[in-house]
């Protein structure tokens, strides 16, 4: 089975800190995605990548950036964390739209 691993299950960071959320997949998938999940809003796409060193903005990219230096790793970066970025962050990878695999999520709290 494809495994998508997110490095932290829970994180607490201070306002203004630079935050890195790491995601690694083990099935050589081309596509990787970062979503945030908030109650009543579902999952919203932040950034995605179809290939190494390639990135595309999703629906809510403001305040975030990403890095994909290797095919298996896709990092989400909060340059200066703010309290409105407190959320559950989900990483996913896929070969195509048919086969998404999600990580377990990172619950980030910014205080």
């Amino acid at each position, binding site marked *: 089975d494809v495994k998508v691993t997110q490095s932290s299950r829970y994180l607490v960071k201070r306002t203004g800190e630079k935050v890195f959320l790491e995601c690694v997949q083990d099935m050589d998938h081309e596509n990787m995605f970062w979503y945030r999940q908030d109650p009543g809003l579902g*999952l919203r796409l932040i950034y995605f990548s179809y290939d190494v060193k390639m990135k595309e903005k999703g629906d809510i990219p403001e305040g975030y950036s990403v890095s994909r230096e290797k095919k298996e790793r896709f990092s989400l970066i909060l340059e200066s964390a703010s309290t409105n970025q407190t959320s559950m962050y*989900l990483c996913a990878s*896929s070969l195509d739209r*048919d086969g*998404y695999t*999600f990580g377990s999520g990172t619950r980030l709290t910014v205080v």
Partner: protein
Amino acid sequence: AQSVTQPDIHITVSEGASLELRCNYSYGATPYLFWYVQSPGQGLQLLLKYFSGDTLVQGIKGFEAEFKRSQSSFNLRKPSVHWSDAAEYFCVTGGGNKLTFGTGTQLKVEL
């Protein structure tokens, strides 16, 4: 842009009763549609998907969904709900390898 709407935020059913979760899509051509489930503390799991062909789609855990073009709907059904079905359900549409999520329906099962 493709989108899906889930009009019900919360639904409560008794164990053993039938279930229908509503989903309406917005897209001119035949959309790619999915239902995902997220159980408490669990990752997202694909229940079923519709791309084309037979409009009644069978999924895992006894779920099915019917694509109705005339109503722009893709409702999820289960004839008899089990307590373990309590979870959040997302209707999802896909385009260009990206998934767009609905806002989710939280299902509560009364024993």
